[in-house]
């Protein structure tokens, strides 16, 4: 058995007897960090336990109260609905941005530019107060005869629809850029290969490009959805009674500000953690054909072994 054969063997058949004693390096830095953070943890726990103003019994009292649960439900509903519409909106934005049609490309670019420039809070307020700007919402050509359909804007825009519309519009810009980044990360040769077997642009996008882009898209998209979940708290400015607005309403009556904010924090932490678990499984699911670095080496190793007889 030569040494080169040992080198390529996937698993050594027997470990050679040790002739030297190796002493691992001491990690002093880890001990120092450990001491510092143990102290920090002590201070934090001390603050949480011994400071009576947290009013933990109030936290316990409100954590599962019907009002808070209803608020949480609305937060989750807002996240799910505007998450889905935001993903769709992002698809449209990415499609515009990457279209062969220069008009669509410009439209997409301007949309992203404007939405990213304006604070989310301002966009939400703008949509909610749209009635002040456009009292009658109508479909038709402006200044040309009677519109085809028209609504009273105030009837159309409730707090809920304004929240959904605002979050969708904001999400669309960011998600669109995430999609675009993922699509651009796919090798150009993949378009060539798909085109060469006679695929249309659309089919190549859905069958060849997107399945590969998803791997790159999911981690930032997960972050974006978690951000969205927390951003739902911004809709307090338009008075939609989601989780944060609910606890605000309660403590404005009872003046138990801190414990009620803790209640909100606990729920945000719980839902975000669930979201992160989901993201982890999605990432594993879409690693198909890529995750196999360990396996990928095997055929080559076998090849080398065969070559050496």
């Amino acid at each position, binding site marked *: 058995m030569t040494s080169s054969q040992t080198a390529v063997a996937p698993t050594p058949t027997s470990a050679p007897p040790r002739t030297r004693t190796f002493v691992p390096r001491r990690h002093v830095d880890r001990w120092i960090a450990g001491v510092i953070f143990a102290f920090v943890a002590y201070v934090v726990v001390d603050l949480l336990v011994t400071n009576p103003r947290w009013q933990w019994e109030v936290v316990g009292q409100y954590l599962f109260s019907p009002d808070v649960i209803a608020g949480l439900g609305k937060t989750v509903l807002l996240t799910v609905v505007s998450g889905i519409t935001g993903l769709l909106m992002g698809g449209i934005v990415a499609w515009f941005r990457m279209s062969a049609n220069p008009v669509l490309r410009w439209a997409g670019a301007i949309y992203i530019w404007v939405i990213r420039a304006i604070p989310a809070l301002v966009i939400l307020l703008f949509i909610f107060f749209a009635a002040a700007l456009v009292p009658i919402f109508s479909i038709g050509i402006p200044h040309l005869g009677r519109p085809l359909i028209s609504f009273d804007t105030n009837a159309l825009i409730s707090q809920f629809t304004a929240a959904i519309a605002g979050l969708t519009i904001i999400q669309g810009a960011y998600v669109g850029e995430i999609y675009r980044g993922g699509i651009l990360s796919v090798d150009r040769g993949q378009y060539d290969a798909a085109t060469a077997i006679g*695929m249309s642009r659309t089919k190549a996008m859905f069958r*060849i490009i997107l399945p590969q882009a998803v791997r790159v898209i999911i981690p930032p998209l997960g972050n974006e959805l978690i951000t969205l979940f927390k951003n739902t708290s911004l809709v307090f400015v338009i008075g939609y009674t989601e989780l944060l607005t609910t606890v605000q309403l309660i403590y404005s009556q009872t003046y138990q500000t801190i414990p009620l904010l803790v209640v909100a924090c606990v729920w945000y932490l719980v839902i975000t953690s669930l979201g992160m678990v989901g993201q982890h499984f999605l990432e594993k699911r879409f690693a198909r054909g890529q995750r*196999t670095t360990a396996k990928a080496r095997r055929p080559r190793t076998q*090849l080398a072994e065969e070559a050496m007889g």
Partner: protein
Amino acid sequence: MTDENPMLQIIDLHKAYGDHEVLNGVSLEVTEGEVLCLIGPSGSGKSTLLRCVNQLEGIDDGEIRFAGTLMGYTRKGDRFFELSEGRKAAQRRSFGMVFQNFNLFPHMTALENVTEGPVHVQHRRRGTAVAEGRALLETVGLADKRDFYPSQLSGGQQQRVAIARALAMRPRMMLFDEPTSALDPELVGEVLEVMRGLAREGMTMMIVTHEMAFARDVADKVALMDGGRIVEYGSPEQVFLHPAHPRAQAFVSVLRG
């Protein structure tokens, strides 16, 4: 369509990227069952010519005709109207293309790569497509690798899957764009062997290559390109042994060493 008509006819093709003329009046014919090797220094326009034939690149002037049909345009009087993407895609199905970097679909197994076109573009029945795909993988010597992902295959194996994928579309002509340039030297032979087999079966092929021994051996015609033009064209003996053009003489003498 009569026998003396060429299968592929390229007439005075021009193509520029900005100010840079990549193809500068290329005319060429390939008859049915013929193997044409395109050789020449890098940057001479060989790959671009191949990509123009398959409409992966647009053209600035000239005509490409396949089996008498104008590719990419329809002519009305003296004007050429660009075809829709769908019509172009349909025309591309006459050609199978093999790339330097294989460009296999990494999220699909070898067999899925081969059946993707037949099932999702040509809408053939999955059962028949799979049976045909297996047979094709067997012809390229990879029957046992059909459930492997591209990342689990060597370069030579990937390129052979890519050839099978192109053949699965039942093309009338195969285009090879430097199929062995990205391969480790010991893997070149297995890919060339598959291509030799195709030539023996009478497949019409246009091959951009740096493998001169292969070109001399397999090609019916060799075209030597330089600076976006064809400077030498003829049988392998003519081009390799008795080149007329001074640029061709220089290129060939370097090859002889």
